[in-house]
């Protein structure tokens, strides 16, 4: 059963996701960052869907469990494509969009194969195990990809502040989730902290994206080398 804390964080997170769409719409960034906004819209829909199933079937029901993990899997794939769209923004002038898309699909297939390799010995609920495993692996792949993208930003001297903040916040989000999953696997724990933490981390991405859309104009510029940990 969910407590008042979980319901409150859930509500805040959903409102923040709506806020991202509203901010993007108000600042004319809805089409420019279309995949990012599709991801946020999907998150809102999933959130409403989860709440409906929770209300009708309960937290411990099989319906909620399946819906939770399968929707999380779909959202992770969408976020992966959102990240790919950030690649397209950075490499737009080099006209390598086709290669970026192909690379993303190859990487997604590779992660799916690897995840299948990990879970294929499970005799029961193979698909469910696969869905959970691939979601966790995609977070780590997403983290590595975001780091590569950040390196490209520094190398190509990308100056668009909003884009830089979107990339950095996505990197933070992926790294927090990857660290959380790794800790969970390392300690094989179902401690309450591992239930509370992902919910809080989940609020960070819509919060930072809403901030980037609302506060930073599209023409704002930053010298990226000043942001690197080791000044260049």
């Amino acid at each position, binding site marked *: 059963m969910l407590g008042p804390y979980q319901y409150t964080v859930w509500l805040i997170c959903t409102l923040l996701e709506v806020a991202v769409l509203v901010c993007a719409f108000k600042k004319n960034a809805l089409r420019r960052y279309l995949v990012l906004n599709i991801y946020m819209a999907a998150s809102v829909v999933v959130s409403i869907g989860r709440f409906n199933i929770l209300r009708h079937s309960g937290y411990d029901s099989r319906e909620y469990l399946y819906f939770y993990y399968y929707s999380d899997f779909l959202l992770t794939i969408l976020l992966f494509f959102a990240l790919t769209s950030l690649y397209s923004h950075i490499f737009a002038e080099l006209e390598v969009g086709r290669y970026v898309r192909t690379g993303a699909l190859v990487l997604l297939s590779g992660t799916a194969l690897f995840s299948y390799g990990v879970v294929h010995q499970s005799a029961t609920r193979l698909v469910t195990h696969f869905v959970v495993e691939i979601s966790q692996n995609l977070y780590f792949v997403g983290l590595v990809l975001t780091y590569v993208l950040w390196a490209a930003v520094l190398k190509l001297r990308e100056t668009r502040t909003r884009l830089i903040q979107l990339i950095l916040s996505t990197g933070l989000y992926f790294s927090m989730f*990857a660290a959380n999953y790794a800790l969970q696997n*390392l300690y094989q724990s179902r401690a309450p902290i591992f239930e509370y933490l992902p919910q809080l981390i989940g609020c960070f991405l819509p*919060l930072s994206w809403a901030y980037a859309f609302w506060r930073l104009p599209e023409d704002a510029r930053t010298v990226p080398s000043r942001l690197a940990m080791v000044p260049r």
Partner: protein
Amino acid sequence: MMAGIILACSVVLLLQFFVSYCRSLITASSRQVLSPEVQDVTGIQRTASGDDYKRVMQLLQLCPERPEDRNSIQAVSAYFKMLNCLRSTVARIVPSMQAWTDVERGHCAYFAAVALERRISFSRDMLAQQMDA
């Protein structure tokens, strides 16, 4: 083993992204010139010292909160604590780290002063609206 490697990589990259993200928040405010009255109140002219941070934050907490900057102030506060931690540990052994943390702490203080300026003008706007009503 694998989970350990993933955890180590994630934490290292998390730190990298966190530092860069906080710097991107700070950089946006570093170009803003402080008004003479905020300069008087905070004692900060063009550059700030890390020692000013605590005082400016106390002043900041006296003003009504703006929902828009809550997130960035919290992130920069966490960044400032991390810098303090580095300053009292690693920076004692590595002198270049000492200089770097001092500069960064000064940027955090300047960021707080800019946030203070925004809060003051926000309070003024609110007061003006109430007077009109």
